[in-house]
Structure formats: C-alpha cells, structure tokens
C-alpha cells in the first residue's frame, strides 16, 4: 500500500526563523519542518507502511540529521530511530500544540548542555586475566592449591566466578577513576549496555557546553594514562542528548 503522506520524525526544536538545511533523511526523503506557533518537528516524507531496518546506513542517517540540526538549531529533543507519524497534521495538533508546555520545558532544561559518549575496551584480554590473577591473592591461592591436577567441574566454576568478579571490580575501579578525573565537569551520566567482556565501560555524559574543552583535554590523556592497562578509549560528541532528555533511547544504543 503506497502512502507518502507519512512523516518520519527526528527531533523537536523551537520554531526557527528559517530552516535552510537541505538534508536527506532516512530512506532518502528530503528533510523538512512541521511547525506550530512556537515549536517545530524535523521530519521527512515517508510511506506510513515503510519499515526501516536497523542497518547502520539507516541509523547513521537518523543520527546525522539530528546532529546537523543540532549544529544550527540547538537545543534539540531527539526522537527514537524508526518513528513515523501518519501525517503532518497529527504532529502539529497532537504533539506540538497539545504538549507545548512539556516540550518547551524539556528544551529549556537541555539548553547549553551537551552529551558526550566515552567507551573503552581492553585490547588484550588474556593479559587482563593474567593481571587480575596476579593481583588477586584469593585467586592466586586457589591456583596454587590446584596446580598440577585437573580441575573438577565445580572447581572450574569457582575459579571462573572469582576471575570474572575480579575483572568486574577492575572495571569498577577504572570507572571510578574516570569519574574522579571528571569531577566538577559532569552534570549527569548514564551507563549504557556493555557488549562482550572486552568492554570496560560505555558511558554517556551530560556536561555544560562551556566545559567541553576541559573535558576534551582530560579524555585525550586517557590512552597515555592507561597505557599499562592496554585499553582503547573512544570519545564521541557532542551527540544528540538521547540519554538525558526524557525520551526513548534510540534502538541503536
């Protein structure tokens, strides 16, 4: 069923005087605005029956539109990937007009603040296991006791549990140190899902825009500071404040 009156939506902003962004959205539709008196939704035309798979191409397109808008029309309230309204009228009446106060309040709340993402992984997992075993007297003791013979199933489980607890506390320790380094800069933070044991942390930070240079400087030094840990840090931002505006988190995060 072909139906192109639908609107794929990206974010809500205060109604701008002009919006000259010639962007292409998810699925290739041209990005445009649906406005009320004070607010606007950034959208692109879409068939209502269209399904948008969570491919990187699609999710990156979604995020890129919000980031481009953010650069010129900050603050933005980002909307989750894959959200489609039946038509422009519904967005204007049911969302922008009816919820005007809440939306304006949420915009004021996020104004002058930016979201940054910091992820870290261990590059050499066997080395991490070696280190935690060496540093952990309890695991060392078990290892000594059991040396020279095969481990039983229960014993293997016990050792496994002890090692994974030690790895976890190493993660917590590093995270704690990072929080200490960033003390006084961060307004809020969220921990996002870890995927795989290699990951040390996946953190979203909300900071005042004015503190971004300070944040950059601290974060750029991490590789050097944690050289022994053989960890890799990746810092992205500013990104749309998905984690701090009370709206759904994008499916890709």
């Amino acid at each position, binding site marked *: 069923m072909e139906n192109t009156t639908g609107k794929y*939506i990206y974010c809500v902003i205060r109604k701008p005087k002009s919006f000259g962004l010639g962007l292409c959205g998810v699925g290739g539709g041209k990005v445009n605005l649906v406005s009320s008196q004070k607010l606007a939704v950034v959208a692109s035309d879409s068939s*209502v029956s*269209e*399904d*948008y*798979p*969570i*491919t*990187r191409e699609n*999710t990156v397109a979604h995020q890129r539109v919000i980031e481009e808008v953010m650069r010129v029309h900050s603050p933005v309230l980002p*909307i*989750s990937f*894959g*959200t*489609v*309204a*039946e038509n422009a009228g*519904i*967005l204007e009446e*049911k*969302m922008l007009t*009816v*919820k005007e106060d*809440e*939306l304006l309040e*949420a915009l004021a709340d996020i104004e002058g603040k930016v979201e940054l993402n910091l*992820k870290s*992984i261990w590059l050499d997992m066997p080395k991490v296991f070696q280190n935690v075993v060496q540093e952990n007297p309890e695991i060392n003791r078990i290892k000594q006791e059991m040396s020279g013979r095969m481990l039983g199933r229960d014993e293997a489980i016990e050792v496994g549990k002890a090692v994974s607890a030690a790895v976890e506390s190493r993660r917590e320790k590093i995270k704690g140190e990072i929080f200490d380094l960033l003390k006084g800069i961060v307004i809020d933070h969220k921990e996002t*899902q870890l*995927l*795989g044991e290699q*990951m040390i942390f*996946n953190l979203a930070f909300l900071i005042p825009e004015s503190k971004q240079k300070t944040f950059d400087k601290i974060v750029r030094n991490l590789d050097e500071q944690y050289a022994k840990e053989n960890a*890799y840090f*990746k810092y*992205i931002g500013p990104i749309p404040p998905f984690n701090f505006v*009370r*709206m*759904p*988190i994008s*499916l*890709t995060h």
Partner: protein
Amino acid sequence: MLIIDDLLLWLPAKGIMAVFKKIHELAEAELNDDSKLKEQLLKFQTMFELDQISEEEYQKQEDEIMARLAEIQERKKLEASSQ
C-alpha cells in the same frame, strides 16, 4: 515500525513523556522478538565504532544478520496467515 498516531490516540494526555515512554516500551518489545540477532548486530556496530573491525567486515556481518532477520519476519508472516 512505530507509528506515533496510534500511541497518541490510545493514551490519555498524561504528558508527552508518557507517550515517549510507551514508544520505548514498544521498541523494546520489538527488540525482544529477535533479540539475539539484534544484540549481535549491536555488538558488531560497537566493535566497528571502537575501530576493532573494518567497515567491510562490519557490512558483511550486517548483511548476514539482516538476511536472517528477514527470514524470521517471513516465517512469522507465514505463520500468521496460516492461522
């Protein structure tokens, strides 16, 4: 896919946040269906973002996962239509 119209019509005006929360729950319900595959996809995306796999490798993995997800969708459709 999420359609905002349905949500806005179902819900009493408890504030926009409730609407967005609902969308998120729906999104999660959708996610849970094929959750294993989608989690894998997320993991590959993260590994690509962390510069641990190349773009080609990521794309290859994504193509495979998307193909498998499409198969599941197809099967669900068949099951639904045969009932």
